[in-house]
């Protein structure tokens, strides 16, 4: 196994919804420039570029192709895309580095979910074979998963609230985050259910 480290990072601000918000390329150009410059690796020497995004979120096929405009793809570059998110793209890049084929990679994820109804959009991704909604939406499915964990004794609602409180507290310190209100574990456990055992 080769050791792989994240050497730089940049993030566009997350927004709930905003009229006149930038498209994928407009978000990526400054973000990518910031991340690449902070890495100290000249842009043309980056071994691999890998993006994660969803055509369903964009609402059109092959939407990720436009994002390559933000990289600068001439002379031709070594580039790939996964139909999910930056975490999945990071995995592909990590594998690529493990194979020894490349020594560095720039990984990016992007999307603007406010263009559609996110719960309905996500539902379409549940079945890669029929490419049709299977029934539960993404929130309900996450609730089923959480319930299975509780039933199996893997975690409790309080454990889940711990994680949420930690994430909210990190969000409160991140000016790019959407949710910036801190909540204690007890406050969270007092909120209404959205899809039991998940709370608002």
């Amino acid at each position: 196994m080769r050791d792989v480290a994240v050497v730089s990072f940049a993030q566009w601000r997350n927004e709930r919804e905003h009229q006149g918000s930038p498209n994928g390329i407009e978000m990526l150009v400054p973000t990518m420039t910031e991340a690449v410059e902070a890495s100290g690796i000249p842009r043309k020497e980056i071994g691999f570029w890998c993006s994660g995004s969803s055509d369903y979120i964009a609402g059109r096929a092959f939407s990720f192709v436009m994002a390559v405009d933000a990289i600068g793809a001439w002379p031709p570059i070594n580039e790939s895309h996964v139909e999910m998110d930056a975490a999945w793209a990071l995995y592909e890049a990590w594998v690529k580095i493990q194979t020894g084929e490349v020594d560095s990679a720039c990984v990016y994820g992007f999307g603007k979910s406010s263009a559609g109804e996110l719960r309905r959009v996500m539902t379409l991704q549940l079945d890669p074979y029929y490419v049709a909604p299977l029934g539960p939406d993404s929130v309900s499915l996450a609730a089923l998963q959480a319930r299975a964990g509780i039933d199996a004794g893997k975690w409790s609602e309080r454990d889940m609230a711990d994680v949420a409180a930690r994430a909210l507290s990190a969000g409160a310190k991140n000016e790019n985050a959407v949710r910036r209100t801190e909540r204690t574990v007890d406050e969270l456990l007092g909120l209404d259910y959205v899809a039991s055992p998940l709370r608002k």
Partner: protein
Amino acid sequence: MTEPVTMITTPMELTYQYTVGPVETQFQRRLKEGRIVGQRCPVCQHVYVPPRGACPADGVPTEEDVELPDRGIVTTFCVVNVPFLGQKIEPPYVAAHILLDGADITFQHLILGCPADEVRMGMRVEAVWKPREEWTFSMENIDHFKPTGEPDAPFESYRHFT
């Protein structure tokens, strides 16, 4: 015995509200004024229209605006002979890639004003705008392009777009 299921049809519908970004907003506002404004890459100097805010070759922001004329050449084209649902024009008609003078990228538009079989690569064309009161934030402000009658551009001048 039950017939095997070999295919299912699952109609679905999603609604999207497309929000135009800052660069597109500016381009479309100018279209409403009857202007075509592209942007130049600071590295390779290529002029893109419509501008997308970045140079696809260099990956850098394109910030310098370039006012473009509404005339140029046909680099490649297709005669549409096939009728299809929602067709607005009676076939045959010509869809062409148009390279505006001073631009380094083509866009697709309609060629009218001459018989379809007279359209050719290198032909000089100019925009025919809709009446001003119909202008909106759209390339459709240009109804179509028509031949100018000027001599054709030499092939070498647009070879890299073919």
